[in-house]
């Protein structure tokens, strides 16, 4: 009976304040979508880091014919130079730093190049002898790149030593900034959502002050008086959170799905990650509305 009564009160409250309730739904929807977007970006970054850090290596590029870099003034790498480098890479001195060494000849390099730039017209103009032979070195600790760089970059026949992680760091830092921006927008929108919920509850409490006054007089408990207001806010926020989850799922499913088909080599998060994220959004929405409406009620409804 009491539950039916509370539900009826919520219904009439929502009907009376429909426009405010709709605005609460929209604001929580947008803010939680940004929270979720920031979360998904972080998940994507982590996934890519995990994927790439295992694969990314230090590349020791060897000189090719007509190389313009100053370290290759003596022309293409000779067989002796190559084997000297290889011996040094496999020596006991570097065993503690190096996990595996893998030699990539020019034909393999061309194959990788073609794969990577499959959609670009540049593919047709590149030939195998333009691409350098490479020792792909994976490190035990990727942070120890400098040791390898110092030891090998000055060896004859080496064009350059590059840490491919640096390239990725740029991508990751860009994605980090994007997720930070999304988070800042999310925080601003959440502040809006909290203030809007507080205002809505205040209006709702004002428009029902006659009822609450009588409830107080006849001895209704604090819960029965306040619950309809709190639930009104919580329901609106929950609807917003559900919409946000749905939107994120749709984005993950269609947009990221499309990206994943275009870049099969990259590890993308899937719509499954949204399923992990949406309970957090629902809880966040509920807490947001519940706490802000309780705080507001403490000021505007005397019990």
């Amino acid at each position, binding site marked *: *009976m009491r539950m039916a009564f509370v539900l009826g009160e919520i219904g009439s409250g929502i009907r009376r304040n429909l426009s405010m309730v709709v605005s609460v739904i929209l604001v929580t929807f947008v803010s939680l979508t940004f929270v979720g977007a920031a979360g998904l970006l972080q998940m994507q970054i982590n996934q890519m880091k995990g994927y790439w850090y295992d694969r990314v290596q230090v590349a020791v590029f060897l000189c090719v014919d007509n190389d313009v870099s100053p370290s290759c003034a003596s022309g293409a790498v000779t067989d002796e130079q190559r084997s000297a480098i290889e011996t040094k890479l496999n020596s006991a001195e570097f065993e503690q730093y190096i996990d595996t060494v893998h030699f990539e000849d020019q034909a393999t390099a061309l194959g990788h190049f073609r794969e990577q730039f499959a959609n670009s017209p540049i593919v047709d103009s590149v030939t195998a002898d333009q691409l350098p032979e490479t020792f792909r070195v994976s490190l035990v600790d990727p942070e120890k790149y400098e040791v390898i760089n110092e030891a090998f970059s000055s060896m004859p026949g080496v064009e350059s030593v590059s840490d491919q992680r640096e390239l990725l760091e740029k991508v990751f830092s860009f994605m980090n900034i994007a997720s930070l921006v999304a988070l800042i927008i999310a925080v601003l929108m959440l502040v809006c959502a909290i203030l809007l919920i507080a205002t809505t509850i205040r209006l709702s409490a004002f428009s029902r002050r006659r009822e609450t006054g009588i409830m107080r007089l*006849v001895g209704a408990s604090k819960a029965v008086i306040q619950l309809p207001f709190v639930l009104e806010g919580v329901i609106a926020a929950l609807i917003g959170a559900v919409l946000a989850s749905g939107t994120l799922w749709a984005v993950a499913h269609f947009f990221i799905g499309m990206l994943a088909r275009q870049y099969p080599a990259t590890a993308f998060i899937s719509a499954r990650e949204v399923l992990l994220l949406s309970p957090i959004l629902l809880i966040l929405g509920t807490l947001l509305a519940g706490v802000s409406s309780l705080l507001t009620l403490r000021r505007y409804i005397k019990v």
Partner: protein
Amino acid sequence: MITFDNVTKVYDRNSRPALNSVSLDVDRGEFVFLVGASGSGKSTLIRLVLKEEHATRGTVYVAGSNVAKIPSWRVPRLRRGIGVVFQDFRLLPNKTVFANVAFAMQVIGRSRAVIRDSVPEVLKTVGLEGKDNRLPHELSGGEQQRVAIARAIVNRPGILLADEPTGNLDPTTSLGIMKVLDRINQNGTTVVMATHDHDIVNAMRKRVIELRNGKVVRDEREGIYLATAMQPVVPAAGTENPAADSNDAAAGDALRQGSPAGSEVSE
């Protein structure tokens, strides 16, 4: 049922106390008029009983328990034992008579079956049979006050507090309301009614507690309330019924004839 032990209530340090060392006892089943001019402390006394205000000094006991010691989560229980009626009725305009009375039962979790039984019964007690489905604006002032009384007593409180329940009604209608309150009192409910309507007080011949400037100046069984006894609260304000000159013998007649001295606002 209600005991005030040296109760003082100060709203604001700079002005005189609203109640000043008031001590009184209302027994179970009594009918008490609380009389005095506006600002004499009647409403403050009622608010203290409901724990809407806290006594600055002294102790208020309601149904045996010290009101100051009731924790806030138990206050609803205190209020379930007290019905309240106001001068301005305070009905919900969008609810029918039945729904207004039922509201008081719904919010404390009474079952639908109990509500279906109790509401018509209490509407009969206040003399509103057959008006269940009227909306408040379709009723006269007296009928609206009867609905308010029905709502106040539907949960069978031990105490009924009425703060100038006839203040907005004409004398004839007031008499009807007084009959209802008297009947409720006969059924065992303690009734405390604040009023400055001396015609009603004189006609009923019940216990009268008179407050003036926050002090009890008179407490009589079967008392009367003389208009001449009224003193201005603030010397410049003047009395509320300067023309009133009724005495004990004329009071009953005045009530029946509808003397304008008896009412502030007529419908």
